[in-house]
């Protein structure tokens, strides 16, 4: 059995180590050793589910060795991680399943699969009121701007349905601080294992990029230039609106697809705006961080 060591902090950047370990292993059964895990965000959690699905494509379900930290287990339970992990992993240890009705928790949106447009409506219905409350009272955004959160969440979920041609997951969570920023933030993770941006745009845009065509070029085309595979000029604007809104709030938005990652990087983060030659991972993984206003 091949061991994939889960880093103590599992988020967007450290998820690359999980992907690298998956890429380095050549088939066989996997053990995801999450015992050291002390902190995980929505992106990391969804990434772990996606990695399990990829690892299981060889035929055997991977094994998950649960984190030792009780608070991490509790948090994973509240995020309903185990509801989905139990389908993908053989779990060693005793997971804490959410009993539901967790309205008093600090979870903004538990892990939610996006399979059809109805799921997008459900997400917006469930989250909108609470998100506005958090964005206005905890992040100190003006109310008129906080209302855009539901719209942004809807667009990022629709991205799965319109471009991935596959099921995906979304989750969001508030934190009092993150390693890069000593401020309250809202984090959104959206992960799918679909055809990725290169696959989505290849038929309509690959030819004119010539030798430059690849994951990075596809991400630039969609993220910077708003290109889509649709000929309708109204398409491809969802990401643009998300970038505009996140930029206004001093936040970060990044998309990893295939072997590349592109990001709008605020001054509080030191990630590069474009990364290439990352270990390959299918689909697209989107991370959004919305920080509290600095004067708060």
């Amino acid at each position: 059995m091949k061991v994939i060591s889960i880093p103590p902090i599992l988020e967007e950047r450290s998820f690359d180590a999980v992907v690298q370990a998956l890429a380095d292993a050549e088939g066989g059964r996997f053990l995801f050793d999450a015992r050291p895990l002390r902190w995980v965000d929505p992106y990391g959690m969804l990434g772990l589910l996606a990695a399990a699905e990829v690892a299981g494509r060889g035929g055997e379900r991977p094994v998950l060795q649960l984190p030792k930290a009780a608070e991490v287990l509790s948090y994973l339970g509240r995020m309903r991680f185990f509801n989905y992990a139990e389908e993908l992993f053989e779990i060693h240890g005793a997971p804490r399943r959410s009993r539901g009705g967790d309205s008093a928790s600090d979870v903004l949106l538990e892990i939610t699969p996006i399979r059809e447009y109805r799921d997008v409506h459900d997400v917006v219905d469930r989250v909108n009121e609470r998100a506005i409350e958090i964005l206005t009272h905890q992040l100190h955004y003006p109310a008129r701007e906080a209302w855009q959160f539901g719209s942004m969440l809807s667009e990022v979920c629709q991205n799965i349905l319109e471009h991935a041609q596959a099921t995906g997951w979304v989750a969001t969570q508030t934190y009092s601080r993150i390693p890069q920023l000593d401020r309250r933030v809202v984090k959104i993770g959206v992960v799918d294992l679909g055809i990725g941006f290169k696959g989505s745009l290849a038929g309509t845009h690959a030819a004119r990029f010539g030798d430059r065509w690849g994951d990075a070029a596809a991400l630039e085309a969609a993220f910077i230039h708003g290109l889509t595979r649709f000929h309708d000029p109204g398409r491809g604007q969802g990401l643009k609106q998300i970038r505009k809104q996140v930029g206004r709030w001093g936040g970060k938005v990044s998309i990893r697809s295939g072997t590349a990652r592109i990001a709008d990087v605020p001054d509080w983060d030191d990630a590069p705006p474009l990364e290439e030659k990352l270990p390959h991972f299918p689909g697209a993984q989107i991370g959004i961080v919305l920080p509290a206003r600095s004067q708060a």
Partner: protein
Amino acid sequence: MTDVPRDVVPLRFELSSLVTRSVASLYSHLVTRPTGRAVRLGIESQISEIGALCLSILDFGQVAVLDYSCADETVAKLILRYQPDDRPADAYFVARGLAEHHLETIEAVLERHDLALVAELESGPTLLGSVDAEEMEVWTAVERLGRATGDEVAGYLGVRPEEISRPLDSLVRRRVVLYREASGLHYALTPLAADV
């Protein structure tokens, strides 16, 4: 009070309830492209039943969240459908009940397609979307006058008629001013929508 041309049939679409009716679910938010498409088809269906010159009020008063994709399908594609000469019916649109957080989304989809839309805001009537300064000036004059010939609009602005012919023709072509060839009158849309 502007005299309403006798052949104008007013229609009011309360969009939130139309969402429910069109997609047969209790959606309280205008989000996703399929929802926008369903709403637009519902509006188009009712306009086609009228079969006459139609002034349609798009009422966003009960809409909480409006995303870009849904606005593109509902608003932009609706206006695009009734702009060309081969349009299925003679329809004009006025937006009502727009909250501040809707405006940016509506403006974005209108500008994307180089469209304009008359809106009744709390601050008064306005023209949203892709509009230049001359068009805005002439549109504002027509709104103030309620109805007027081209010469009367020019007189109100203190300019020669030929100086406003381009923006006035553009406003008529973009269907944010209603023009009746028989009378030579240009009608502002918001006074026509006042009783709807």
